């Protein structure tokens, strides 16, 4: 009964007014919006910033009369992708309300989805290039398939900088001024020389060799896989040589990123000179809310570092076959092109958003100074960095190759294997992951 009245009202609405057209069309679409992601980040953004989103419970929400269902699978051990793959492969046979409508991807494996028919071109959702003009080019490069079609968008940009310990800079380099520090880390040779100085003063240059890895892997001259063969870029071998020398000289360690051993440098006793990271790392990951941490004391500084790089970022993709294209398009528009909402995100969540105008304005504004950085406003550096990132050498195999390369080289750095053995282990591991590859 109720349903009949509702549909009658909708039909009337559709006939009567142009303004209601969008609403009616939306209602004619699916009643359930299925979102696949790996953590709470996007949910928080949508809850806080999307107009009309209501929270129902931890994994459910409502937008108008559409139920939003969150399918959150952590990315560890590939669990998120495995789950997503199964769902996408079953998409054609799924009932409308069970169809996946929107999912998130990270840069490392974006191409795996972008270069298939499982993702919908952004243009097909009605979003034009003009609307996306303020977004940083690299964020679009990542989501562009091999035919040049854009398949997804992001609300954030994640250019990174070198984050240094001001105390150590004063002690060893004589000043904690960003320009002085930049001079000491302007290229990798100088970086290595500074590392030796730091070691003499009892500081590790970086917490682990993997800190600098991303900077090297973002600046490669070719793709990981060329004609079905695995190719190790020269720049990565430079990283291997530099890292081995640094580990042997006790200037860094081989700990994993995010491990306890990695993060001990967030505290003065950890005695680590620098980290490489983007805005979100400075604000959320360096224990700023913990008393006694360097971040809490505002003891970090930021400078450009030897080379530009980016780290992280989450992209929104529409799943082909979605029964809620209008709503998906609107979510993309609101979160990634609406300057007002994006500025709100900067203010509320300290994200570096994917909007040149908003970020350049913020870079000029002292109220955006980071307390963690002792009052420095690093946004200008981030803006400059974001413009220079070139991701033409991304491939669908990046995630697996990067992970395995770091894991295999750890054995070389630790002295458990010579270089050839370590490289052999790398090839074996990658070929296990991607049986179609050879070397």
């Amino acid at each position, binding site marked *: 009964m109720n349903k009949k009245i509702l549909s009658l009202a909708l039909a009337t609405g559709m006939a009567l007014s142009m303004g209601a057209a969008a609403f009616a069309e939306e209602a004619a679409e699916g009643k359930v919006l299925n979102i696949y992601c790996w953590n709470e*980040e996007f949910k928080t953004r949508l809850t806080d910033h999307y107009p009309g989103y209501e929270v129902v419970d931890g994994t459910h929400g409502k937008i108008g009369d559409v139920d939003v269902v969150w399918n*959150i699978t*952590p*990315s560890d051990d590939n*669990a998120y992708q*495995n789950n997503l793959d199964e769902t996408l492969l079953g998409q054609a046979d799924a009932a409308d309300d069970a169809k996946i409508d929107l999912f998130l991807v990270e840069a490392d494996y974006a191409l795996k989805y972008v270069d298939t028919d499982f993702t919908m071109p952004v243009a097909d959702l009605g979003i034009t290039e003009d609307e996306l003009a303020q977004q940083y080019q690299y964020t679009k490069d990542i989501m562009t398939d091999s035919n040049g079609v854009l398949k997804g968008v992001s609300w954030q940009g994640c250019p990174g900088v070198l984050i240094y310990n001001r105390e150590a800079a004063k002690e060893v380099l004589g000043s904690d001024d960003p320009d002085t520090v930049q001079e000491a880390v302007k290229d990798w040779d100088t970086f290595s020389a500074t590392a030796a100085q730091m070691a003499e003063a009892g500081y590790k240059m970086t917490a682990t060799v993997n800190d600098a890895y991303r900077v090297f892997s973002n600046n490669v001259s070719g793709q990981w896989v060329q004609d079905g063969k695995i190719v190790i870029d020269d720049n990565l071998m430079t990283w291997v040589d530099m890292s081995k020398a640094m580990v042997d000289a006790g200037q860094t360690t081989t700990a994993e990123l995010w491990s306890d051993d990695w993060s001990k440098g967030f505290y003065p006793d950890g005695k680590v000179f620098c980290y490489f990271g983007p805005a979100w790392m400075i604000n959320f990951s360096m224990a700023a809310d913990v008393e006694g941490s360097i971040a809490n004391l505002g003891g970090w500084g930021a400078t450009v570092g030897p080379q530009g790089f980016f780290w992280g970022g989450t992209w929104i993709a529409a799943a082909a076959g979605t029964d809620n294209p209008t709503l998906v398009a609107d979510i993309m528009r609101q979160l990634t092109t609406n300057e007002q909402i994006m500025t709100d995100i900067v203010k509320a969540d300290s994200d570096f958003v994917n909007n040149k105008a908003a970020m350049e304005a913020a870079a000029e504004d002292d109220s955006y100074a980071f307390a963690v950085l002792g009052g420095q406003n690093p946004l200008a550096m981030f803006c400059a960095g974001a413009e220079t990132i070139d991701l033409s050498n991304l491939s669908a195999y990046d995630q697996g190759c990067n992970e395995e390369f770091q894991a295999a080289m750890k054995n070389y750095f630790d002295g458990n294997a010579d270089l050839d053995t370590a490289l052999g282990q790398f090839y074996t591991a990658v070929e296990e992951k991607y049986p179609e590859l050879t070397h």
Partner: protein
Amino acid sequence: MNEKKSHGMGIGARRALAYIVLILLTFLCLFWFYVLFINSTRSHAELTKGFTPIPSTFLLTNFQNVMKGTLPIVRGMLNSLLVSVSSAALCVYFSTMTAYAVHVYDFKGKAIISTFILAVMMIPTQVTVLGFLQLVRRIGLLDSPIPLIVPAIASPVTYFYMKQYMESALPLSLIEAARIDGSGEFRTFNSVVLPLMVPAIAVQAIFTFVSSWNNYFVPSLIIQTDTKKTLPILIAQLRSADFLKFDMGQVYVTIAFSIFPVIVVYLILSKYIVGGVSVGAVKG
């Protein structure tokens, strides 16, 4: 004479040695849990400063942080309980039944079947897991607890144990007596045999429960949805942390949460568990 003396000396010395070894082993068994307890009461900042043997005051804070986080560990524990209890119940009941069939009855092919079960006892479940996964997918039970529970019905190892126990503890005359009293075979099994088997059933129920409770390999391949995951999968997810849940205090509390309830239940039941294990063991 001489030998007797050394024998007498031996007892005192051996007793002392026994106590020393036992205390050492006790230390080895308990030390880790002590460290775990201490560390789950400390904040991340305190943890980075190195170990101290005195507990701090952050236990509740850490726990609340975990509860606010994305890891559904309470659900995980319930899921684990469901899977383990059901598996243990099915496993012991049907293994006893199978052992009973082979022990009591004499039928054509019995020798073949008992040799067969003995032979397949050696096949690790992991060997067949690939086909198992494909099967589970084909019958649409992926991401469901059923494929983690039902296969427990056919457990060669438990069967073997039950059969051994029956050989020493289940006189066939008893069954004949029940038959003379007019009891049906199924009823005899349930009301005469099962009670007699209780010591063995208790042991194997515990073993099965524990192995199912600990099982990580197969569940991690079958369960995908976070809210259906068992505790071991959730624990493994701690190994590679996400930047949003990056706090060693929380890591320790999560481990503690998955360990200490079991320890408490165990300590309450230990009289029966340890006693049951010893009583039910295969008689030499």
